[in-house]
């Protein structure tokens, strides 16, 4: 679901940025006002779950791959606005350091995965929580919210891909950017997400939520007490996911819409000019790999760098945030 560079026209990217800029501004204000300073670093750990979940590629019907995002999970633990900020920063690290998702298309990726996914997922979760109480209600709500949220994000992503050949073509009618119209992009993306990737999102969300609620109940915004000792199991889970992330390499093939230009040319018979001649960011570790060394080594190093960066960023944010005075204490 990471839209690469040049698959969307610059004007589409600009619209996505224009939509996301006020959202990021509101998210930053809400996090600053509502999240206690000692809880901000925990959002970084939650963002690490999202980062790692996105590294576990799963084979989808049609020979492509997909992944979970864990956006609903972060929204349940910390609220949808902190989730928006956390996933945006995880996506920024992926785009800048690992070339996963484009820099120009960063706004569109955030719109799909950092805004639509957590907000829809959290709304459905809240609606179900109101009707079904207790632990069961929470897990059912999380599962359904995660499934619908991921599919809503995938649908929006497919529409963004699909409108490109309708809006941007050259004189001969050939597409300039993504060559597949809505009639192809929507079924192709939704087939994989409605069947396998959605279930993977449910598995990650419900599994991690159940683990966190039993092993570290104060991990989340609802419990205002922050004890360092109680988060050791959560950190252990992050370390275990880092160690296990090379499993994501078992799924071969590209995700839908994330092909190289040569592959697109082979599939549609021509290389769209915007795609072939567009600007491309030179990342530190393209596709989470380096040189001729085993892919798993690059994958694990990438996971470590990504997780550490997320934790550092949110700890620095917590350090920069002014501590609020609670006059009720």
């Amino acid at each position, binding site marked *: 679901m990471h839209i690469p560079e040049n698959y969307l026209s610059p004007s589409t990217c600009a619209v996505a940025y224009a939509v996301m800029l006020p959202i990021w501004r509101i998210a930053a204000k809400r996090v600053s006002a509502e999240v206690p300073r000692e809880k901000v670093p925990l959002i970084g750990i939650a963002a690490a779950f999202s980062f790692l979940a996105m590294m576990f590629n799963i084979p989808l019907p049609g020979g492509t791959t997909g992944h979970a995002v864990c956006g609903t999970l972060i929204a349940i633990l910390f609220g949808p606005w902190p989730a928006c900020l956390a996933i945006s920063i995880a996506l920024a690290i992926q785009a800048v350091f690992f070339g996963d998702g484009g820099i120009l298309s960063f706004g569109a990726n955030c719109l799909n995965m950092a805004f639509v996914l957590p907000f829809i997922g959290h709304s459905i979760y809240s609606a179900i929580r109101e009707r079904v109480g207790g632990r069961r209600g929470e897990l059912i709500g999380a599962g359904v919210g995660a499934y619908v949220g991921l599919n809503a994000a995938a649908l929006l992503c497919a529409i963004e891909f699909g409108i490109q050949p309708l809006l941007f073509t050259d004189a001969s009618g050939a597409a300039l950017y993504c060559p597949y119209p809505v009639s192809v992009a929507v079924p192709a993306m939704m087939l994989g997400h409605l069947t396998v990737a959605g279930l993977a999102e449910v598995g990650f969300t419900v599994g991690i939520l159940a683990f966190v609620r039993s092993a570290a109940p104060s991990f989340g915004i609802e419990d205002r007490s922050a004890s360092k000792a109680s988060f050791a199991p959560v950190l252990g889970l992050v370390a275990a996911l880092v160690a296990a992330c090379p499993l994501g390499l078992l799924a071969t093939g590209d995700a839908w819409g994330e092909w190289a230009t040569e592959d697109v040319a082979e599939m549609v018979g021509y290389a769209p000019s915007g795609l072939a001649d567009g600007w491309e960011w030179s990342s530190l570790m393209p596709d989470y790999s380096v*040189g001729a060394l085993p892919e798993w080594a690059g994958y694990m190093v990438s996971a*470590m*760098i990504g997780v550490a960066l997320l934790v*550092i960023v949110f700890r620095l944010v917590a350090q920069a945030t002014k501590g609020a005075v609670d006059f009720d204490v």
Partner: protein
Amino acid sequence: MRPDQRDIPEWLQTPQRYQPVADRDSFVSRNLLAVTSVLARFRLDDGHSGRLSPTAGSKVVLGLTCILLTSLARNHLFVLFVLAGVLARASLLPPRALARVAAGSGAAAGLTLLVMAPATLLGQPQSALSLATKSLVCVAITLIVSVTTAPSDLTHLLRRMGVPGIAILTVDLALRSIVCLGETAGEVLAALSLRSVGRNRRKQSSMGGVGGVVLLKAGRSAQDTHDAMRCRGFDGEYRVARHDMRPGWPDVACLVLLSLLLALFLYLQKVI
């Protein structure tokens, strides 16, 4: 002519269009004050060892080896391995120490990218990224060793390595005085900026005076510290107890890590 106009002298009746020349003190207020404020923040004498921290010797040896190997590495993967380790260690630092490490290493990487901007514009962004990563790693390692090591442990280590007492005293005094001198320079420059109103060339010539004040202050502080140490029986020799730096299991872990890094470095150098 009205009576009140008659009383006013003629020179006072001449309309004047006084427009003061815009004050220009950006050289003082932006450049020099910024430099000295950075100096004032350059505190290297307030590190603290953690509960599971290895001895200063192990940290310094591991840190220097990492810096050396990172600088020599031709394989980018080695640098990324070290970067992953450095980031993992930094993420566990206390908040203030983390902020200092992030600021210092981020500034170093940013400066490198700036210096390498022509290479990026000429189509070689990988060299700029590689050098910036190396700068970030090296500066971060130095700062992590600094913020996780008590200054007395560093003094101890230097003595154990056989460094002459006078050299240790000089380093010790320099580390402790650099912040005070930065603050003094900042205060004098602020006074200069406040007193010198309007545009004049004397502002820049006063820089020599600021330097002189800081130099005098440095000399006086060093003399005071030295006198105080003499009063407390310091005779130029640092005596260290052997049991103070006995290695423990964190040092063994450091040694293992060092061996792994060396092996990885040698292997990766061959792969290229």
